[in-house]
């Protein structure tokens, strides 16, 4: 069904867990060279995305990236959503690792 996607962190991406389709990563923007964005995911694991030319980068700002794995070492980014400068990544990571799996009836 549309609108459904898993919320995962960097470790899950590395393990290719729940990455069959589009997935959500929330993280802090670290660096950008115009073509690649490095994001520190909610668990502190860095991930690199291929981005478009009109991507807005601001170091330290937290975003949600909707993306997929690709054949390259990088992830493909489709959509980014701003979550501001004061986002609590630790709390979010605790939510997706400890709360979501135990209460799936509300989310999946």
């Amino acid at each position, binding site marked *: 069904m549309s609108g*459904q996607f898993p919320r995962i962190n960097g470790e899950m991406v590395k393990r290719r867990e729940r990455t069959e389709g589009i997935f959500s990563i929330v993280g802090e923007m670290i660096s950008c060279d115009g073509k690649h964005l490095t994001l520190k995911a909610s668990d502190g694991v860095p991930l690199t995305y291929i981005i478009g030319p009109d991507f*807005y980068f*601001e170091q330290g700002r937290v975003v949600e990236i909707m993306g997929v794995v690709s054949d390259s070492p990088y992830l493909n980014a489709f959509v980014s959503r701003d979550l501001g400068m004061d986002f*609590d990544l630790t709390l979010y990571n605790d939510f997706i690792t400890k709360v979501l799996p135990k209460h799936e009836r509300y989310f999946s």
Partner: protein
Amino acid sequence: MANRFGTDYNTSGGGDFSSPAGGTPSGDGGRKATDEQTLIPVTIKMLIEASKNNKVLLDGREPHQIKLVAAITTVVKGSTAYNYGVEDGTGMIEVKEWVDEGSPIVSKMREEAAVEHQYVRIIGKLEEYDGKHQIVAHSVRKISSGNELTHHFLEVVYEGEKYKKQDQIVGTPSQAMGNMNFDGNNMQASAPIMNSGGGQQEGLTSDIISFLSGRTDEVGGSLAEFVNENNSKYAENEIRQMFNTLATDGVIYSTIDEDHFSCIS
């Protein structure tokens, strides 16, 4: 990907509850009593399930209004209403917000929110129009902080679990009895109901249940009487704490007053 970052998060989302400009949803049978006018935090998955269940959530709650935090995927701005498509990872649903041009402040907040790929907080009702379920929103506002996303999901779980537990204490015995084994006249817990520390706690639990099981009348057993009979084995505050824990877990319930309890059976 076009995004408008750098937006100011200082403006609060507010709770504007201005009435819709027009249209009364069908099937609304009159104003609910004040204590039935609930506002329940939900996910889109819960709403989709409710739409197939006569607008009742699967756990039995009947939301008068719902609160949702979701990202806007599409916006269509009409002269009388804004129509949004929103998603939150659990599903996608359409939202209609009637336009009331009376207040420039409200109009400004609406415009700030009506941006694709922006997370918003939605307050409204689940309604059916032309055979399709959607949210008719009183308010669609940009979230004041990204943390609203996490807090909302935690609130969804908290309120759902609180409702479920409330139902157990009031007397849905099947779940509370799930952990109990019965061996003739002796009732024993097959596993501790809560995280109790060690054999002492299990012994106290077992003694309390045995004590209350022996009281078959409606009044049940007295906590004070149990304390008197067992003060050589357990400390009073320990006993009182365990009674409280067993009541919270739905194993026992209070009867005529706060001193008398019975086992759920």
